[in-house]
């Protein structure tokens, strides 16, 4: 399934909702926390994204709660949304892996030779990802450190974070 590239704020919204339903303000706070303050979601962006996600059937209105005498809708991830998030996460992982392998950081095979599949690393994950509709191909990325300009360590720990 090929979609247009997902934008990072949308991806983070799906990630936040993957664990638990949230209301708007909760989503904004969690996105800020997950991205370590890098992504500051504005209400306008949030509700535009939620609108599109609901139209695409990835997010649904879970319930409403009264918080401080105001009715707040809580949003949750649909099964389709779960599948989409898994697919996009695997694609991120795969894209990153291709780039890192090509840069000569981390060892493994680039997934560029096997179209349609993604480098998903651990076998334990493959079955669950297959359930979610993500096809995995063989290959692995092991730990690597960033070496630029002939060996200087930059402190990026490329622990195979996906794996």
């Amino acid at each position, binding site marked *: 399934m*090929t979609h247009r*590239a997902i934008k*990072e704020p949308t*991806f*983070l919204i*799906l*990630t*936040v909702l*993957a*664990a638990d339903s949230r209301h708007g303000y909760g989503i904004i706070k969690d996105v800020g926390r*997950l991205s370590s303050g*890098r992504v500051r979601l504005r209400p306008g962006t949030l509700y535009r994204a939620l609108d599109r996600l609901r139209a695409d059937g990835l997010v649904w209105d879970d319930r409403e709660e009264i918080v401080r005498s105001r009715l707040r809708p809580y949003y949750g991830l649909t099964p389709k949304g*779960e599948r989409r*998030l*898994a697919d*996009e*996460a*695997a694609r*991120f*992982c795969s*894209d*990153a*892996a*291709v*780039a*890192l392998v*090509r*840069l000569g*950081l981390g060892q493994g095979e680039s997934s*560029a030779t096997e*179209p*349609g599949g993604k480098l998903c*690393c*651990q076998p*334990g*994950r493959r079955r*669950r*990802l297959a359930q*979610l509709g993500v096809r995995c191909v063989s290959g692995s990325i092991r730990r690597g450190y*960033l070496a*630029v*300009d002939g060996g200087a360590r*930059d402190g*990026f720990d*490329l622990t*195979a*974070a*996906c*794996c």
Partner: protein
Amino acid sequence: MAKRTMQEATFLILTALASGSQHGYGIISDVETISEGRVRLRAGTLYSALERLRVDGLVRVDREEVVESRLRRYYRLTPEGKKQLAAEAARLQADAATAFGRLGLAGGRAVR
């Protein structure tokens, strides 16, 4: 780490150049392979992107060749370009790890 996230076309072009120097046509076909057919760069978009990347100091011209009376210019990544590509890859990995953790997939970092 770069604060702004990279556009997809930029990331793909940098990845295509990550394995060595390439000329325009090579970059386009490599990008198509990497993106599994999803992104087909056209000449205009590619060259305005390459121009942009040269101004930003991420790409440089490697060498020029004349093949069948056509000019072929090869481009390569600069050290800064490699660094930014790696940073973007690290960001993608981190985002993916968080998502896997939240989806309850084994091995991911569960972040609450």
